[in-house]
């Protein structure tokens, strides 16, 4: 029983992170039908910038409590990621706005590789440990262990998702984003500057990605230049599982994928009689991806409301 609960908690934590990243994929897809494969690298750079920033502060002898150091790191990483997301769209995708869909897709993969290599030049090819600045108190939760960090990850994710929903459903910018996603030409007729809306989409998605990157690094105590690839693929899977282009779907898909992966890896050893261990956990994301693409390509929440009568 407590293994089940433990894996459920772990899955929820990882799932909230997937959900935050999946939102970035799904928002961009919703508005311009592009899979921004460079999004995983934004996540990685968010983590790297935060680690560097915290180490610099510690090196300079700044004596702040751990969470405040982390906050300082985040406040550095978020603008860097926003600027990076904005620049990628401006430089790599905007010139291809009217091109066949394959061209921006290949470009996205190219941008992803460029960012990976650039990160390797800056931060090296080795794992970067996450500074030991956070309290490691473990709470007992009905026989399962949960740390302060895990609680913070889940709460912060929920707050950010709530904020995003509010932005999209209740503000003028959000309305313009939804209108642009449905019909960019008519949104333009109504006075919406589509370029601004697309830039904002990248900026918002990138800031969520940066926060998620820091969560990943803190949760696994490390970061490296290639981490964006796998986490990006998984978050993309989560977005597809929920129904790509659907904001609620990204959240549901992220949480579900985290839980499936966590429970699956927890029991994989027992199920296969020890033949496959929990280090095969990455299998689950891709089994899910293939399953969704075969049986329900539109995703769980991907049903479309009639647009024309």
């Amino acid at each position, binding site marked *: 029983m407590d293994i089940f609960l433990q894996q459920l908690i772990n899955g929820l934590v990882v799932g909230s992170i997937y959900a935050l990243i999946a939102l970035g994929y799904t928002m961009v897809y919703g508005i311009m039908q592009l899979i921004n494969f460079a999004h995983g690298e934004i996540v990685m750079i968010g983590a790297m910038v935060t680690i560097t920033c915290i180490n610099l502060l510690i090196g300079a002898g700044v004596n702040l409590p751990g969470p405040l150091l982390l906050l300082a790191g985040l406040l550095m990483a978020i603008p860097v990621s926003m600027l990076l997301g904005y620049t990628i769209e401006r430089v790599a995708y905007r010139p291809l706005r009217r091109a066949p869909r394959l061209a921006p897709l290949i470009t996205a993969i190219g941008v992803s590789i460029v960012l990976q290599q650039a990160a390797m030049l800056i931060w090296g090819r080795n794992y970067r440990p996450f500074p030991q600045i956070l309290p490691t108190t473990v709470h007992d939760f009905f026989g399962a262990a949960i740390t302060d960090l895990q609680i913070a990850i889940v709460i912060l994710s929920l707050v950010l998702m709530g904020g995003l929903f509010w932005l999209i459903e209740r503000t003028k910018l959000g309305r313009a984003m939804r209108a642009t996603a449905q019909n960019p030409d008519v949104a333009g007729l109504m*006075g919406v500057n589509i370029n601004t809306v697309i830039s904002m989409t990248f900026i918002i998605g990138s800031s969520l990605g940066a926060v998620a990157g820091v969560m990943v690094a803190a949760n696994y105590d490390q970061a490296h230049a290639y981490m964006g690839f796998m986490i990006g693929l998984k978050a993309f899977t989560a977005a597809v599982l929920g129904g790509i282009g659907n904001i609620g779907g990204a959240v549901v898909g992220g949480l579900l994928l985290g839980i499936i992966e966590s429970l699956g890896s927890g029991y994989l050893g027992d199920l296969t009689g020890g033949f496959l261990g929990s280090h095969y956990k990455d299998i689950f994301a891709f089994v899910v991806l293939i399953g969704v693409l075969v049986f329900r390509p539109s995703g769980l929440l991907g049903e479309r409301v009639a647009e024309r*009568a």
Partner: protein
Amino acid sequence: MNPLLDIKDLKVAYGGIHAVKGIDLNINKGELVALIGANGAGKSTTLKTLVGMVKPAGGEILFDGKPTARLAPYDYVGKGLVLVPEGRGIFGRLTVEENLQMGAYVRNDKADIANDIDRVFSLFPRLKERRSQLAGTLSGGEQQMVAIGRAMMSRPKLLLLDEPSMGLAPIIVQKIFEIIRMIAAEGVTMLLVEQNAKLALQTADRGYVMESGRITLADSAANLLANEKIQQAYLGE
């Protein structure tokens, strides 16, 4: 007095095809002008050019005495030029009310916007009942009302209507034209592109006839309705 809209020798080409081959057209403040013609005559292209969706290849468009050539596509609505596009172009996954709010996107006067939404609802009581319904779930006629109401929300100086009767049942078409007359009676200047030439000319003050990219006739709507050639070619009589 200068006309509100003054088109001089407008030419439009898409990838080598000359859709509009040098037309002159003008609209005075308060007029309802119909642009009629067969499929592919260049009517819709003309409207799209007026709101910057298509760039002209030559000629000049003066709106309120000023050239529009340098405006970005999203600047037109702020100048008072708004198009109700062919096929309605509503935002299907936004509610009726959100669609109307999109029409007022360039305005910032919250109280006035709320008043104008009420005004649209008084014009279209059907929409009031459905204000929080997704616009994509409405019938074609109701969607056309959303599209017209949305355009009204920008307080246009010139309202451009592209085939408002398209795909609608005859009884709904009558209803839509009733609304067009009501809007005209409020003093809104309109340019109406229609394949239903008879209804358009019965509604309009003046009309232009367009044939393969050229204006071939321009006259009062009453004279065009009485014109034998027009009757044979467009009115099915």
